């Protein structure tokens, strides 16, 4: 398990990380999302030891990570970088050896990954002679060539064509299936939602939400329900738990409180006529992301001096803020395909 615990980093007056804490289990694909400048790259650099944090630790298998352990990590930085004039094969062999592989193993691994990522026929070419897409593949091979025990990839999907995206997704799943904790950042939220077991949302140097997508859904403040009915406008206004309602020709879109019982709504609608559609609208990761960010808008807002030394663990604030345990727990029983929204206790008695 890879654990990041209370990472803090300050560049001059600017606070880049303000207590970043999350963990990635073996075999877990962890999506790391956040706005530009939120602290993703800084977090990853610290994880790889490229940067040193002001405070906090990175642990792997329970032990603080040292440089020997880091050599077994694989890293793809956001700013792509390879020696432009070095030949692809030589470069991969070199990086593999730097990560501690023997010469023979490095050669085998380089060949394997060039084959696997379809750049084998360019092995003898200088990197600068390759197309950007192929350079990206070589970069990926560079992160994978030493069979890393942990994979940290900063924006690995950006710049890839759809085939490349599928190819990479497959590779990442495969690595995870072998028990490797995989962390990657991306702005392509659908992709993250589709691929990841867990996600973490970072905003202005703080983790504002972590957990599974379903867990985050379950923990959100409101739910949206679409009801197809011919009942007249205003029919749902007085149902307990309905925050607001929008009526159209085909029915209504209702906003419910987390505690609201949707079956009460269904009963009410059926009492007024046939119900052709009853759909809890699942929030996409993009929506969850926007909400999480909106909730924390203003946190640490360009005022670094405001909270000079917040205590450890005071990383996130606000309702949706969640340490991993809190947000992940209620999500467990939810199945994405069912119409049932995340179960919540019936607090309000149903009365029609």
């Amino acid at each position, binding site marked *: 398990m890879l654990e990041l615990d209370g990472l803090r980093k300050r560049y001059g007056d600017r606070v880049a990380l303000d207590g970043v804490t999350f963990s990635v289990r073996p075999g877990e694909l962890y999506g790391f999302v956040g706005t530009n400048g939120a602290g993703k790259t800084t977090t990853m*650099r610290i994880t*790889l*030891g*490229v*940067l*040193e944090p*002001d405070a906090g630790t990175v642990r792997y298998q329970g032990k603080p990570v040292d*440089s020997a352990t*880091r*050599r077994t*990590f694989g*890293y793809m*930085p956001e*700013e*792509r*970088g*390879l*020696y*432009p*004039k*070095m030949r692809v094969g*030589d470069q991969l062999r*070199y*990086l593999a*050896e*730097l*990560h501690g592989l023997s010469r023979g193993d490095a050669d085998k691994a380089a060949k394997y990954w060039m084959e696997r990522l379809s750049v084998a026929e360019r092995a003898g070419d200088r990197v600068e002679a390759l197309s950007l897409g192929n350079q990206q593949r070589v970069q990926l091979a*560079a992160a994978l060539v030493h069979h890393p025990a942990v994979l940290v990839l900063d924006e690995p999907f950006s710049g890839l064509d759809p085939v490349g995206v599928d190819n990479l997704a497959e590779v990442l799943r495969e690595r995870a299936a072998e028990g490797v904790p995989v962390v990657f950042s991306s702005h392509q939220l659908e992709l993250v939602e589709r691929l990841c077991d867990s996600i973490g949302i970072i905003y202005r140097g703080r983790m504002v939400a972590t957990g599974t997508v379903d867990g985050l859904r379950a923990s959100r403040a409101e739910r949206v329900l679409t009801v197809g009915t011919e009942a007249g406008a205003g029919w749902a206004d007085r149902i307990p738990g309905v925050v607001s309602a929008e009526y159209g020709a085909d029915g209504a879109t209702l906003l419910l409180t987390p505690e609201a019982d949707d079956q009460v709504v269904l009963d009410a609608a059926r009492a007024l006529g046939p119900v052709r559609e009853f759909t809890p609208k699942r929030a996409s990761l993009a929506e969850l992301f926007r909400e999480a960010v909106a909730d924390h808008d203003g946190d640490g807002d360009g005022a670094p001096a405001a909270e000079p030394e917040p205590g450890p663990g005071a990383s996130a604030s606000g309702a949706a803020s969640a340490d991993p345990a809190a947000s992940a727990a209620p999500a467990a029983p939810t199945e994405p395909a069912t119409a049932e929204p995340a179960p919540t206790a019936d607090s309000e008695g149903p009365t029609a």
Partner: protein
Amino acid sequence: MNRNTVRLVMRREFVERGRDRGFAIAVGISLAIVLVSVLIASLVSSKNKTPSFDVGFAGTRAAVEQQMAERDASAYKIKLTSTIIAGGDLAAAQQQVKDGKLDALVTDGMVYVQDEVDPKLAPVLATANLAAQVPNLDQVQAQTTMKLAPKDPAAGQRKTVALIAEIMLFSQMIAYCMWVATGVVEEKASRVIEVLLSTVSPRALLTGKIIGIGALGLLQLAATAAVGIGAGSATGALHLSPQVWQTVGIVAVWFILGYIFYAAAYAAVAARVSRQEEMQTAVQPLNLLLMVPYFTAFAAIGNPDAGWVRALSLIPPFSVLIQPVRIAGGDAAWWEPVVAIGLMAGLTVVIVLAGARVYENSVLRFGSKVSLRAAWTAGRKA
């Protein structure tokens, strides 16, 4: 700092740079310079070569004159090839003089030449002519020369060797230090540095780079020395004296010391910028720090035993380029190079430590040039 990673970095630098066209060009140029200077030297020395003459002797005094001429030839610094011409062949011999096959034909009291007697040959023939007419040859007393203030016959060669050593040292140091600087910026500009630093420490990276490129520099130095000495001794421009090998050793030692000193400084300066174009301006002060001692060295070569040369030859980093000038001087004390090397080594250690610190603190800061203060104090740990 992991020794194995230093070795890997070193090997990469050596192999990749060695494959680079720039290396082939650099070696080509330095070999060309050495060959041309050897050629010039051999031309100059052939000009000073002892001239040789073919002279025929005929007539009744022929045998005595030949004997006298042969004896005096070396005293007059000429080489004489002489033949006795039988009386009947006189016309044929005159024809040979006309054709230029003989430089002179001497008969009793007569000298036949094409146009005029070579001034170097004339006194030999004149002396022989006179001596041959002395009845009792044994009574003629030979003259002996006593040298009262002899010149050092090797002084000229020493000066030449010092000059070549100077040029080699300077061009090698500036070329290989620039390579280090370019390499540092290349890693920064291409951002490969981030991948590298996730597995290699900055110090290991810097150490491997400096040693790898320096090894290539030594290789070029060795090749140049081998070709220069080979060509020099083949053309006769160079006498293979112990002094030549000593010079090669001195140049190698000073190259290693000077290269490490300057390379660490160049690397530190280069680490503060993110693009090659900025690097050119950033290293200007260092170029100057190399060029000033270099031009001073040229001034010093004419007067290698002057007090100011002796003083500068001990002071680092001047000593790198001034100490080898003392090769040209004849009376360097044994302790001079020892003290010079000791002082330079000490300063090199300081510069390497400071350079590594600046490098470490700057190499991951992209964008505008890292200020010296930030490079010194802040960086990865701040």
